[in-house]
């Protein structure tokens, strides 16, 4: 009887557990429980192309760690000026919820009289998701980086300016940062500000940074999250790394054509030592062989 009771309890428990687990597995996306996170940013890249990037996610209102990327949403990018809109292109979000569009360096934008450009990233909505849109206003800024040795000092020269309608270079005020490429991310090696109508800023470049196998070191100059210019990156490579110098110190003597001297010396000593004994033994064998028979004839055989 006890066994039957336990058996029934076991089966009921199993069914309940299965039901719950099935329920949790078949949970569907309920848009009302989620808040949409829609973020648009733009970066002017080192080759003067412009990256437009939208990050589109849904975050659970009750569990903020539960973030689901929105996959396959079509994002349209526009350049706009007052009522006018010019479609720049469109892109669908990936499984990570990212939609990207790279615009060429010579891309034309709608620009107002102050030189401001307005970009708009728009999701037009679907059955379950409502429309999303975000815009960025910025000025096109020119960022240049040069790596030079000035009076024996390795120097990174940053130049920042905008160009007005007349094609003249206009100095700007901004904070800039200098980075180098490292293994997993970029490492900041300097910060500075360009003010008071200056065009240039000079960074003293460190002399102890490792480069790649050919001593090359890539430096990145960045304007980051500037309210007027957004994100702008410029980069340049120079043979300023020191990694190769360390490598030269290592000598793989076992891989060389000839073995290290000590190896020849040790081997010679060992072999000469052993073979000299063999020769000595063989000489003694000949001496035994050539001993006169007089001993035998005189019967001087050891006889205890």
């Amino acid at each position, binding site marked *: 009887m006890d066994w039957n009771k336990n058996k029934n309890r076991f089966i009921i428990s199993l069914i309940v557990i299965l039901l719950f687990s099935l329920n949790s597995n078949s949970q569907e996306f309920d848009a009302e429980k989620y808040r949409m996170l829609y973020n648009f940013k733009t970066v002017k890249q080192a080759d003067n192309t412009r990256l437009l990037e939208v990050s589109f996610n849904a975050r659970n209102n009750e569990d903020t760690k539960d973030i689901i990327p929105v996959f396959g949403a079509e994002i349209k990018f526009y350049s706009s000026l007052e009522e006018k809109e010019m479609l720049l292109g469109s892109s669908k979000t990936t499984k990570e919820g990212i939609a990207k569009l790279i615009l060429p360096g010579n891309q034309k934008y709608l620009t107002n009289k102050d030189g401001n450009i307005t970009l708009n990233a728009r999701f037009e909505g679907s059955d379950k998701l409502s429309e999303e849109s975000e815009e960025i206003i910025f000025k096109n800024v020119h960022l240049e980086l040069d790596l030079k040795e000035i009076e024996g000092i390795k120097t990174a020269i940053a130049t920042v300016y905008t160009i007005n309608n007349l094609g003249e270079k206009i100095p700007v005020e901004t904070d800039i940062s200098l980075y180098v490429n490292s293994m997993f991310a970029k490492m900041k090696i300097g910060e500075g500000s360009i003010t008071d109508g200056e065009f240039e800023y000079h960074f003293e470049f460190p002399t102890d940074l490792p480069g790649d196998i050919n001593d090359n070191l890539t430096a990145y100059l960045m304007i980051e999250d500037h309210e007027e210019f957004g994100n702008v990156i410029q980069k340049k490579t120079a043979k300023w790394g020191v990694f190769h110098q360390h490598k030269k110190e290592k000598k793989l*003597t*076992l*891989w060389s054509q*000839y*073995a*290290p001297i000590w*190896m*020849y010396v040790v*081997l010679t000593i*060992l*072999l000469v030592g*052993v*073979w000299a*004994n*063999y020769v*000595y*033994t*063989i000489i*003694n*064998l000949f*001496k*035994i*062989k*050539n*001993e006169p*028979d007089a*001993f*035998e004839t005189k019967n*001087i*055989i*050891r*006889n*205890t």
Partner: protein
Amino acid sequence: MDLANRKKELVEEFSPMIVKTSLWGKLWIGGLIAIILVGLYAFFVQIQKGHEITGMRDNVVWGIYIINFIFFVGISYSGAFISGILHFYETSWKNSISRIIEIMTVLSLVIGPIFILLCIGRLDRLHYLFLYPRIQSPITWDIIAIMTDLIGCFIYLLLTFIPDFAILRDSKELEIPSWRRKMYKFLAIGYKDTPTQSKRLHKIKNIMSAMIIALAIVAYTVLAWIFSLTLQPGWNSTIFATYFIIAGLYSGVSVIIISMYVIRRVYKLENYLKKIHFIGAGIVLLVISLLYGYFTFSEYFAKWFSHKTSDTNLLNTLFGRYFWEFILANYIGIIIPIIILFFKKLRTIKSITFAAIVAVLGMWLNRYIIVVPTLETPFLPIQDTRTEYLFYSATWVEFALSFAGIAAFFLFFTLLIKLVPIIPMSGIIEHERKVIKKTKNYTDGLE
């Protein structure tokens, strides 16, 4: 002591062993030759078709050939080591076993390297090893060590044979063909047992004994380095050379015990190979088995404790696909001999021999699991290769050649003890001389 008479007596006692061959003896030799012939046929097939007909492939490039090589060379080095040490001991019982060890040493060192030649895919390029040696390579060291050791062992064997060759040369009553008498005359190199000759021979034997002990250690260390100087998980170990030497001694002493048992039974040498010899050898085997067990444990324990991915993968292979081989080699092959040899009551001639057989089989398997599973579990996972290349299994060709090697060892052993008595007659006379001298000194002292 009438020396001439005593020599005559000894020759009479041992002459049946070296002159006559019984029907069983002939069958034994015939059987061994048959196995060798099958091996030669397998070798012919291997030469004709290439290594494709063996189990060795791109990934597992070594198989039972290299295992046999390590095994035989291990026996040889341990024989040289023990023989060299025994030479310096003034004991009465060493004479009965010294020749068994010396013959075993030389024959193993002749047979072992042949297996290396069987591993070489392009035998026609063998001479490149000598023409263009790389001094940095452990393989070059091993070739130099083996050749030097082989020549040293041959010289040492000849030195120990010379007095017996001289006795056989001078035994006019011995009914042997004239070519054989001429051979004895040639090999005895005019030795007449004069005081000067005896003293000279003893001196160079002392030097060669010390030399072959050192050579055995160096040569087996170099052989271990072929494995341990690579970064291969399972081989790259600092204790590998010492481990190899202990393992070599373990198999060597076991083979000595088995040989003693067989020779005692076949040639009725109960008066020379006594229980005390087995007990002594058994205790030596016990000490070595404890050391060997300790080294085996240390080797695998360090791998297990490190938790390195490569070592973990190897241990997974060993305790997975090679579970029973691992248990037989490293548990049964060590624990059974220890149990038998540890308890005094269990130490009989048969049980000690049984322990030695278990040890030898365990030792061979140990070599197998050192070589094959390690090559099947390399540092980087094997990718984009044929499934049949991933794992090794020996083919009939490899087995035929392995058994041919073992048969050749037994055949040469049998022929060598037909050439010269397995118990050195000169050693018996030498021992009796010493006893008489001691007694005389004692009597002179009393007077």
